């Protein structure tokens, strides 16, 4: 008899002395703020990053508002520059990077491998406090008047020329890096040491594999940006010459250090999205993930190769031409395997039994947008194309297809998929579907015109632009309005469900995986009875055992 069957047979829905779930075990604010429960910390992260998301989104809305007119008459140039810097800094470091790992990863990774918590629960609490401390610094820099360097902080603009609150924001980002490192460390140790009996490496869900891969990047890449940003602060404060040529430094050195982290950081955003989609697609196709082992290896492979392509951000900055050719080649080598994951998901739904519920709609949207993002990335990796579209709206469109079309859609898909597990409530399915479709439409209307704008030659970070670009900009801004509704709807109906939603069953999607074998929401230590794993991941096609 399988574990699942045992559980179903012997622990029928919350009858026998079921312990209180993690949400109801205590109710005080203190019990949340000092919690070492990975689930509560995941929820703390979820609340925090949602707040930061809306700050970043308001900045984006103001940017799109400003760009409706070509003459930059709505804001001053400085205000515009501060808005896109806030948008970038907040979205990258305070939303995208922690988004899936720190929320779903925290909540689900121990459950998915049958552990009762992460390996270092107090370190986990600490990492949230470190994150919030970093965020505090960054938010203070915004409150004091903002920064205008762009999220890329290129020297010597950031060290010698900007007279905004750059150091304060930098300190914030430096601190946030430590929370990534702590989370990564915690995940790696947990996966190595806390797997339940029977949970072999190749029985782990792909989501866990991607969390493991992301943790590698957290540990290996984050220290580099930390050091680079510390040097920036030192140069700004003490005039040591590292990056500013007037002090004997080299500004291209900063670009190398910055992208050595920030390119792998793209995979910090991409891999978890792939992990989420790899959970949703099999669940809503009732079929085992096609090429499970291959996808698992590919996650680790991508996390490795991503360290060798940073130079493709620097094709026109004066680096050696031969370095550029090499980086171009390596970028092709990493982009193609990423993009063909889509073939795996397509093969998964072939001959499946599809249910097109909200999470699946998000997943389908993700697949479409991610492919466009990935392939336009190949265009950018092509040297002679990059020479034209580098630093134009083409790049803006490309990375929004990856980060919003990819990561944010996966995040929303995952949020809907696991919402019943997180909260014990069901959301309104009709509203969910409407929002998913609206999101897909709004996203494309916003960002597709930007590919055209970029190829036409509109540089990014332009507040004032030539009049002939206005039409595309208006389209883009109109799309952003649709997108705003697609963000606000889920916020409202998900919150509403917390109080008025139907109570969620333990396994509303009839999905496989350990998280669906415990109660919704799970008890303090995740399982009423420690699980023993005797089934493969995505066991959708197994014969139903006789109970």
């Amino acid at each position: 008899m399988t574990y699942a069957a045992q559980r179903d047979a012997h622990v029928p829905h919350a009858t026998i002395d079921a312990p209180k779930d993690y949400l109801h075990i205590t109710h005080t604010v203190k019990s949340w703020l000092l919690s070492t429960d990975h689930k509560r910390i995941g929820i703390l992260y979820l609340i925090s990053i949602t707040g930061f998301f809306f700050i970043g989104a308001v900045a984006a809305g103001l940017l799109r508002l400003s760009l409706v007119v070509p003459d930059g008459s709505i804001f001053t140039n400085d205000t515009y520059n501060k808005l896109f810097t806030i948008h970038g800094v907040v979205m990258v470091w305070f939303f995208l990077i922690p988004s899936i790992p720190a929320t779903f990863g925290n909540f689900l990774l121990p459950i998915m491998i049958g552990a009762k918590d992460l390996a270092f629960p107090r370190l986990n609490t600490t990492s949230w406090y470190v994150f919030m401390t970093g965020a505090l610094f960054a938010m203070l820099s915004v409150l004091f008047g903002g920064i205008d360097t762009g999220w890329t902080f290129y020297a010597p603009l950031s060290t010698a020329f900007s007279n905004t609150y750059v150091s304060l924001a930098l300190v914030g980002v430096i601190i946030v890096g430590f929370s990534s490192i702590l989370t990564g460390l915690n995940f790696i140790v947990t996966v190595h040491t806390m797997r339940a009996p029977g949970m072999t490496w190749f029985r782990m869900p792909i989501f866990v594999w991607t969390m493991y891969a992301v943790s590698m990047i957290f540990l290996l890449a984050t220290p580099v940006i930390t050091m680079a940003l510390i040097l920036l602060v030192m140069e700004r404060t003490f005039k040591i010459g590292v990056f500013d040529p007037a002090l004997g430094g080299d500004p291209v050195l900063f670009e190398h250090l910055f992208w050595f982290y920030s390119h792998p950081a793209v995979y910090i955003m991409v891999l978890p999205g792939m992990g989420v989609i790899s959970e949703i697609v099999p669940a809503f196709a009732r079929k085992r993930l096609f090429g499970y082992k291959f996808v698992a290896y590919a996650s680790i492979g991508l996390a490795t190769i991503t360290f060798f392509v940073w130079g493709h951000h620097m094709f026109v900055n004066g680096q050696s031409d031969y370095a550029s050719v090499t980086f171009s080649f390596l970028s092709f080598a990493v982009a193609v395997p990423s993009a063909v994951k889509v073939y795996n998901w397509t093969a998964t739904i072939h001959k499946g039994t599809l249910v097109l519920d909200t999470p699946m709609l998000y997943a389908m949207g993700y697949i479409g947008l991610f492919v466009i993002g990935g392939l336009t990335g190949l265009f950018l990796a092509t040297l002679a194309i990059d020479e034209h579209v580098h630093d134009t709206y083409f790049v803006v469109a490309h990375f929004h297809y990856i980060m919003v079309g990819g990561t944010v859609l996966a995040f929303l898909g995952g949020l809907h998929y696991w919402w019943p597990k997180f909260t014990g409530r069901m959301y309104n399915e009709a509203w969910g579907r409407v929002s998913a479709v609206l999101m897909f439409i709004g996203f494309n209307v916003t960002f597709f015109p930007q590919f055209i704008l970029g190829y036409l030659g509109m540089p990014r970070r332009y507040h004032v632009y030539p009049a002939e670009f206005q039409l595309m900009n208006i389209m883009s801004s109109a799309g952003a309005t649709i997108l705003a509704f697609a963000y606000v709807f889920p916020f409202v109906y998900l919150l509403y469900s917390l109080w008025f939603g139907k109570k969620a069953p333990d396994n509303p999607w009839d999905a496989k995986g350990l998280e669906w074998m415990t109660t919704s929401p799970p008890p303090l230590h995740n399982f009423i009875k420690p699980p023993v794993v005797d089934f493969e991941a995505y066991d959708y096609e197994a014969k139903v055992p006789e109970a």
Partner: protein
Amino acid sequence: MNGIGHALDIWPAAASASAVEADHLILSFTVLTLFLTVPIFIAFTWFAIVYRKGVKADRRHSETRSSAIEMTWMIGPFILTLFFFAWGAQLFMHHKTLPAGGLQIDAIGRQWMWKFQHPGGQSEINDLHVPVGENVVMHMISQDVIHAFYLPALRIQMDVLPDRYTNLWFKADKVGSYHLFCSEYCGTDHSVMGGTITVMEPAAYQQWLAASGSDMSLASAGEALFGSYGCSGCHQGQSTVRAPSLAGLYGKPVPMEDGRTVVADDSYIRDKILNPNDNLIAGYKQVMPSFKGVIAEDDLLRLVAYIKSTGVKTTGSLQ
């Protein structure tokens, strides 16, 4: 002709053969990517419809061993795309190989304007005039932060760095006016740091040069500066200080004290003026003062132009 564009354009004007080639590159690459993805999108949508729950369909399938399929759909597209990697790299290297004897125009970027200097000494701000059908080499440096010189109609851009010369060349083949942008974010007025590049018939360009008037060429201006900054006191004629003559220096290898040999190009000469204590030359005592903060980038370019010009007239050697 006005190449600036109209509101309904979805494709930019192309003003050089290599811009047209870049267009062919991206269009044919787009065709390949459509070939690789459209079937997937169709298949995905089709499967989502025909295998919907509740729809009768043949769902029998065997547990396929997937390695062969996986390798095929990973390596196949990879090899197909490599053709575009190679094409892009080849065109890029073509852009990176400076033509011999092109018309060199100096560009100095600063917050938030461009200054261009033509060899005859004519200078202009933000707008640039160039002759059609001629190789034009932009020789660029920034006075403050990183900028980038971007000509969408020619499909090329290059970062303009402080303290280091970078180059970009093009051969425009369509007369007209096109946008000239700064594409690397450089602070407050980044978005208005630009103007127009006007590609003109050679005769019109000559007329423009004449009308824009200039007392002297860059090299002659450099010669005057060579005197006024006191360079000639040591580096020329019967000086009492033992300093190398610079006549004919440009492009020659210079032996260093530590045994290396450095070719005296623009960067080397600029660097020697600003940081004489670096790269000590074999056989000379280092007595030269630094001119860092004393000579501005446009004058440095003039001095380099002068030293370059001395090589054309005389064949003096360093020693």
